[in-house]
């Protein structure tokens, strides 16, 4: 009996019709394609994109050169050199993140005691040469300066869940 039912189903192309029905349903459903870059998907305030170095409101860089981010980085993407500044504080003379190595795990951000290194919502950056993705301290600070308002808002939103 089962065998007979199987033959009937095969000759009537039942599976094909079932598949085509699904396709047909999507022909009339609302499209979910995002037309990037004209359209963008919503992002969480915890989005981990391009890194930035932040400053305090008075313009002082936040980073104190404690090197915890360098120590915690699982991809060894961060390289820091520090020295004593004239005012007796430790400051970085070099703070590089190799974005080619970075796996965007966000550990650096978690380790930072002063919220200096953060990951922003930016993901649409590119480099034409390999070296373009080697971000130095100046580049990171520039990112921070440009997006400070958004960065600060994201930290504030996230703080409720910590």
């Amino acid at each position: 009996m089962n065998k007979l039912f199987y033959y009937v189903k095969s000759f009537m192309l039942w599976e094909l019709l079932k598949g085509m029905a699904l396709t047909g349903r999507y022909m009339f459903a609302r499209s979910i394609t995002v037309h990037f870059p004209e359209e963008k998907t919503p992002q969480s305030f915890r989005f981990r994109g391009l890194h930035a170095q932040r400053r305090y409101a008075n313009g002082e860089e936040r980073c104190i050169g404690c090197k915890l981010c360098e120590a915690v980085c699982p991809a060894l993407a961060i390289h820091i050199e520090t020295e004593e500044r004239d005012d007796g504080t430790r400051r970085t003379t070099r703070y590089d993140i190799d974005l080619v190595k970075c796996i965007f795990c966000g550990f650096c951000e978690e380790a930072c005691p002063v919220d200096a290194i953060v990951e922003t919502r930016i993901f649409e950056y590119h480099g034409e040469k390999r070296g373009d993705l080697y971000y130095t301290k100046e580049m990171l600070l520039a990112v921070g300066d440009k997006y400070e308002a958004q960065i600060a808002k994201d930290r504030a939103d996230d703080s409720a869940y910590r």
Partner: protein
Amino acid sequence: MINIEIDGKHLEVENGSTVIEAAHDAGIYIPHFCYHKKLSIAANCRMCLVQVEKAPKPLPACATPVAEGMKVFTASEQAVKAQKGVMEFLLINHPLDCPICDQGGECELQDLAVGYGGSASRYKEEKRVVLPKDIGPLVSAEEMSRCINCTRCVRFGIEIGGQMELGQAFRGEHAEIMSFVSGTVNSELSGNMIDLCPVGALTSKPFRYKARTWELSRRKSVSPHDSLGSNLAVQVKDNRVMRVLPIENEAINECWISDRDRYSYEGLNTSDRLTKPMLKQGGQWQEVEWQVALEYVANGLRQIKSGAGAEQIGALATGGSTLEEMYLLQKLLRGLGSHNVDFRLRQADFSADGKQAGVPWLGTSVAELNKADRFLIVGSFLRKDHPLLAARIRSAVKHGAQANIIHSADDDLLMKISNKSIVAPSAMVASLAEILQALATEKKVAVDNSVQPLLQGVAASATAQAIAKSLASGERGVILLGNFAQQHPQAAQLQLLAQNIAALGNAKFGFLGEAANSVGGYLAQAVPGASGLNAAAMLAQPRKAYLLLNVEAELDTQNSQQAIAAMQAADMVVCMSAYKHQGVEYADVMLPISPFTETSGTFINTEGCVQSFKGTVKPLGETRPAWKVLRVLGNLLKVQGFEFDSSEAVRDEALNGVDVLSKLNNSLQGLTVQTVSTTGGLQRVADVPIYASDAIVRHSAPLQATQDAMAPCALMHSDEMKKLGVKSGDLVKVNVGQGSAKIKVSADDTLPDGVVRVAAGHAATAGLGAMFGSVTVERV
């Protein structure tokens, strides 16, 4: 021995030891801050509180002596509660900003706070603030708010360093560590306070904020700066030496190192490092390839050998060169047919050569110095020349030993000196003879015939008798000849007298080795032997070619003016050096060789301990290890037996499998004694300041910023200054031999009459003649 129980473990411990010692010996850790095994007990941090059965309250383990049947619980509820309470109190005033602190990652407080601290602070009130202090160029006291008042630094100063340069002032909440008396910490051992400080209050100034402890790799090395051979941990990041710490070795440096060993690394990467071989052509220095430079040297040596004879070639090495370097240098010279090789650059009297039964050494082990009960220290700037040996002798004196000194300067040795005889250099032999005379009378025995000529007409003074009495009353006496005695123009006579005093007084007798490889130099045969010229003769009878290994001729020799003249007269001077130094004026070739951090090698310390080490970083630029340079030079000159492929192979050939200790012997036989008539007038007393002892130290900026590295003055007794009509601070012209120098004069009433103390080894006095002998001082 008594029986106790710690955490249920039955232990048999020494009577009189403390609970913390017993626990640590048994491998049970008790948290602590103020306790340190080398320092006295303060019991002021209270971190080591433990529960003791039948005791109503927790007791501090560091200050509680063990008692029969004692039951101790280090991790019971009561003990842990007490320890956590103490930690909370300690953290009340301690800043909680570990990421900023330079000690972060190697901080005892940070480590223990993980186990005993709360996750959040309950303290909401204001924290105590202690103002930062400037205590000198080596130790940073910028963060004194971090201090937990354990007083380890204070106790170190008093007990090991010998002087209380840091102290705790005020009481209670206002208590703070500060320097007083001088304002800065000038001890030659001050860096150890940084290691002792359990928090980030005292940190290394040159290293401050340069790197974090977890970034550094730790490599073993041996100090090249003094004859103790302190064990070092060289910490390296990115192929650069970042700092140097001690490695504990109870037999040698205990857990300390001197500031010279600790901070000399700052001289390793200075801009005046020589990084490419250089040739002088037509009066102009040119950087060349190694091949070119070495072939130039080989050709030059070949020409001089065939033209003027091999004996016109001389080689000088510093005592801080490794065994391998010195061995290959002498092998090269001997292969060329010359025996003119020496490393005893500051020695003036070579009459003991050939009469010495073996290699001169300390005469006892370093650790035995702590147990000696009588010392006679002849001619030594002990604290500055041998900072850690001085600390050992200081510790012996503290435990009841008597120290007697004979010297030409009365520097404060920071220990109780029982008797001292401060005489002009020319009177040192007589002064020692007096002691021998007095000791012979005391013991009622006759002195050996060989020294009889020195005793003629000698009448023992009261001081000499007191020293003789002191030596005679001891059981474990040690007689030590310091650097000054070894550089003395009658060094062999001093040695002979000391040997006889030691024989009469049943004491040990030895030399405080002048440099890291003073023993190694002899074992490497870097001495001329019967047919060669020694260091002094090589400079007095100028040679046509000189090979200089690590030597800066004007700073590292007995007679700087003669050395410069000899170098300038030579046809070819080859400087193998890590630095571009004054040598550029007289050298023809500068070959960049590696300092101790960049080469493998061996130092044999003054007690005969053979310590080999490996390079810790790659050679800078085109610098090469000197043993490789000498090996290639040997190959180019076709000298036999230069097929070495490692420094270990060189060492094994140099030591030839013999037991080093069997070669050490201070005995001097068959010396013909000639009494020297002294001329009147002023005599020079020359010390080599602690931070002028070798090239690396001289290039270390933090060390050069210390008080010990101040430009040398002409120090004189104020009576002598009155005769001259000068006062302290005046500029005077000092003439020694044919050289002169204009330096400031300063009064030092501890100096004997008729002497002027002018340091050697410094650029300001580099043109002067011999380190001993007559000197004239003129007003300018």
